[in-house]
């Protein structure tokens, strides 16, 4: 229980820091909207193409923005050696990971909630009567994504070339997440078949659970300085 409390205080600290600097919010929101615009231009003006591409575009924008947010959350700690201070506290290493994970998940799901209606309008892919299901998809998809991104951001925080290394390492791992999230979103945005959405949600839940356990178990190995 104490570990959870420690994790929550790190989560609060990250949120407070973000509230004061607004670095991640500005970077991710603008970056994600630029990605949407670039992809809209790249795909052309055919409405059917835009509609089919909408779920993929949504998750590509979210994934790119999520990398920025994860990298930033450890970048902040590297300045003024704050990470060493953090490691000196008498708390479990996994609490640090859990706190960072909660913060990243919070940013990413918020960004997802903003991007879903924007993508739906810009790419002419209206959400049907089951629109609330896409919020579940965003929550589960961004959870899996932030587990991997927070973990690999910690792993690469002390390495050279970390900015380019983070996406190289984590994208092959999050392929199933992107896959399941895009398929589920596509059902909701174009075909509207909630039964298939639940199949994909099961994959997302399984992925989230297994990676949560695995990363939590091995996190202290990558933070032993």
């Amino acid at each position, binding site marked *: 229980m104490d570990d959870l409390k420690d994790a929550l205080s790190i989560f609060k600290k990250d949120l407070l820091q973000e509230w004061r600097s607004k670095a991640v919010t500005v970077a991710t929101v603008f970056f994600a909207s630029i990605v949407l615009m670039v992809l809209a231009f790249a795909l052309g003006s055919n409405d059917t193409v835009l509609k089919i591409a909408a779920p993929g575009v949504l998750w590509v924008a979210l994934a790119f923005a999520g990398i920025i947010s994860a990298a930033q959350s450890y970048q902040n700690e590297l300045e003024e050696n704050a990470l060493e201070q953090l490691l000196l506290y008498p708390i479990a290493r996994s609490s640090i990971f859990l706190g960072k994970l909660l913060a990243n998940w919070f940013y990413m799901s918020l960004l997802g909630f903003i991007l879903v209606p924007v993508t739906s309008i810009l790419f002419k892919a209206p959400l049907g009567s089951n629109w609330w299901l896409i919020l579940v998809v965003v929550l589960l998809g961004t959870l899996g994504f932030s587990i991997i991104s927070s973990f690999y951001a910690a792993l690469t925080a002390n390495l050279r070339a970390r900015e380019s*290394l983070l996406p190289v390492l984590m994208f092959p791992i999050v*392929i*199933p997440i992107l896959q399941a999230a895009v398929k589920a979103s596509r059902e909701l945005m174009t075909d509207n078949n909630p039964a*298939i959405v639940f199949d994909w949600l099961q994959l997302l839940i399984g992925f989230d659970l297994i990676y949560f356990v695995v990363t939590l178990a091995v996190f202290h190995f990558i933070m032993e300085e």
Partner: protein
Amino acid sequence: MPKQPMWLNVYGFVVLVLFLLGMYLGLVVSPPDASMGELIRMIYAHVAVAWVGFLAVVLAALHSMLFLWKANFKDDIRAVAHAEIALVFAGLTIASGMTWSKPTLGVFWDWDAKLTLTALLASLLVGYFIVRGLIDDPERRGRISAVVMIIVMASLPFNYMAAKWFRTLHPAKSYNVDATGLSSTMSPVFVKILLFNVVVAAMIYIYFFIQRNRIGQQEAELFEKETELDVKGDFIHV
């Protein structure tokens, strides 16, 4: 540098002979398949390297776990040896899979489940070696790369599911023409030759593993001696 032991030379020679025998069985003895024709001969090589490649990843992850548990550098060296061979075999699997895919399906790449999985595995292994290349301290390098390898293995079942469902949630049976889908309908002569080739591929793998392990241990000894000299004085690096 210690001399290569005699038994290793003998083993290497035996493996070479068996490899040539496997090629002979696949290229000459094996009759052409009813549906695939002469292309069945490619399956012997393709399936053999694919299976052994995935086995190598599992062994690399096992040695990575052992390293994290016991902190014995021999396990780190073994994990690297397994991972390097896994990368080579994954590359061979992709190359042979694409060569098989062109005459049968008409395209080099068709996002077939197992081909996609192998491509993802190859990129994950490349990431593992990039991480290793960026860390100089051997203890930290072993620890962090072991964690990466464990995550790589944990991701394989998910990547397989994702690749399988890439096209649709319920893929059509006729589309699923590959090694395991085939084996149930294979006649015994094909199965025998295939298994022979798999065993030979595993033996080649063991030979490479022993060699790579020896090199890795000599590298570690060299590194140790160099750091010892560094401590005594810097007259070596003038």
